[in-house]
């Protein structure tokens, strides 16, 4: 993705976010007492100012992208870093799998407990990032959550979620 495309994306998203905040987010997301005499003291005032500024900055980014456009159409793609240039479907697929792992991890914590949810999550992430040390990863996947449990539960006094099945001392 070229710098100009990035700018267009950021600027467009900022303008859309600003419009969304003005027409939906602020009217439906913020409640203000009706008897406020001075507008600057209203709970709505600060978010409205921020939404306005986000829109303005977004417009500024779009304008600067447009200004840079003519010069960059010839050189589009030259400012890509190697990492960005190799933006393959495999990268997106791994990212999608990672998202699923994180969602399942989060959902599993209240059900099976933080320690037992962490072990498969650890192993899944290790294999996702193509670990060259699978045995070490599995051993670490068991040890790291247990050590962290020992510290947080017994030293820091945190009530670590234990889940509904196997409870740790």
């Amino acid at each position, binding site marked *: *993705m070229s*710098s100009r495309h*990035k700018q267009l*994306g*950021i600027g467009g998203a*900022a303008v859309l976010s600003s419009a969304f*905040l003005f027409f939906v*987010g602020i009217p439906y*997301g*913020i*409640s*203000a*007492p009706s008897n*406020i005499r*001075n507008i*600057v*003291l209203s*709970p709505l005032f*600060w*978010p409205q100012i*921020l*939404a306005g*500024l*986000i829109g303005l*900055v*977004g417009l*500024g*980014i779009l304008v*600067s992208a447009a*200004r*840079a456009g003519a*010069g960059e159409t010839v050189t589009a793609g030259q400012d890509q870093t190697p*990492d960005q240039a190799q933006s393959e479907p495999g990268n997106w697929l*791994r*990212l999608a799998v*990672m*998202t699923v792992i994180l969602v399942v991890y*989060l959902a599993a*914590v209240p059900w099976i407990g933080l320690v037992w949810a*962490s072990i498969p*999550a*650890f192993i899944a*992430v290790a294999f*996702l*990032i*193509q*670990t*060259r*040390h699978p045995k*070490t*990863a599995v051993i*670490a996947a068991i040890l*790291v959550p247990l050590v*962290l*449990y020992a510290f*947080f539960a017994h030293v*820091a006094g*945190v009530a*670590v*979620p234990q889940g509904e099945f196997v409870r740790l001392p």
Partner: protein
Amino acid sequence: MSFFDNLLLGWELVSNIESFLALAVGVVVGVIAGAIPGMSATMAVALTLPFTFALSPITGILLLLGVYKGGIFGGSIPAILIKTPGTPASSATILDGYPLAEKGQAGKALGMALYASCTADLISNLALILFAGWLASFALNFGPPEFFTLILFSLTIIAGVSGQSLLRGALSALMGLLLATIGLDLVYGTNRFNFNDPNLMGGLNFIAVLIGLFAIPEILTKVWDPRGNDGSTRQLGGNWVSFAEYRACFKSIVRGSVIGVFLGSIPGIGAAPSAFLSYSEARRKSPNRENFGKGELEGVAAAEAGNNGVAGATLIPLLALGVPGDVITAIIIGAFMIHGLQPGPLMFVTNADIIYGLFMGLIISSVILLLVGSVAIRAFRFVADIPRGVLFPAVLVLCVFGVFAVNNNIFDIGVMFAMGGLGFLMLRFDLPAAPFLIAFILGPLLEDNFRQSMLMSGGSPDVLVRGPITWVFWTMTVITVVAVVRAGFRNSKQATQN
């Protein structure tokens, strides 16, 4: 109480085994984290934060400061040995450090990096001790309008210099300010973007946001490119830096330290510009200027002095004004908050013992850094061999445990994952994360001081320009905007010409 009485009080507070141990463990953790490519000092400080819950305030904060100091130096080790800066600020160290390593003089380069780092760190800490108290006593005269203009100035400069452009930095800061509005309204107690969800009524958990922004994107980057950040390590070589070589570079080290102190005390500038400025000044003044970039020891010394000279000075605005100077001090402010402390001028009155205890601890940390650094240089081979395929999943699990421990709330883990996704997108789209986090922290303070000012004046904006202090901050804000915009135009003009 006199200055020396306060220092004695501070010494009493830290002259115990826990404090020394916290500093030593912190420096070791920091050096290791800084030395691992893909990790960073910021990430290390963020991940250490949850471990401070079980410690006393002073011990916990010293632990974090140790990680900070160690992390900044640790970043120079991979910069010299594998041409990969452990922290952005170590980029200047590569310029001469790696050529020295290629000549088989890596040990010499690392030794000079260590000595320059420790010297600059000491000078920076002394500057902090001398100036923070003075600035705090001046800031005691600040009212809400003065604090509003100060925070506005800080956010402007942070947004302006953190990223590639003022507009992107400003957008990042505005997003942070908007996120900070979630929760009950400060004055009326009405809902703001919390949709009656009790988890959102107190706003988003600061630690979940910061760990999400600074640790999770690193893991997602590793997922995106599992084979990135691998490099071949150079041997140390038999050479070690001599006292004569250190003395020859001493001028550049002191100059770099002073540059670091000056730039570090301005919120938002950070270590990387300081390292590059110190390096270019050393090159300009050195009789060996032709050798810079080809393996000049003075270049390593200057870069590291500029880099580490910032470390103590960034604490000046944090402790004296309550305004974090960079991302790491923004995280350290979290440790203060966890222990019910609010950094700022009043803390010099209410908790002077903790402030001066920290000062003494910082001085001790320079000595510990020297000892730990000498060992770390030789042990880097083992650190570099830690398999990334095991390290990053471990970091993920550590993040989850740490964030849960703050409020015993699973919702915070979800917030952290969401912020991680946002942080990764920001990374991909070149939006700097530093203004976002600092604005998120300063947002409530900015709004609170604005509304208090308006209450004081009955809604008249005149109160925001009520005296010389506010005028100074408004002028500095305008100068910053003009300077950053001019620099932006100049850069785009040069880019078009090229």
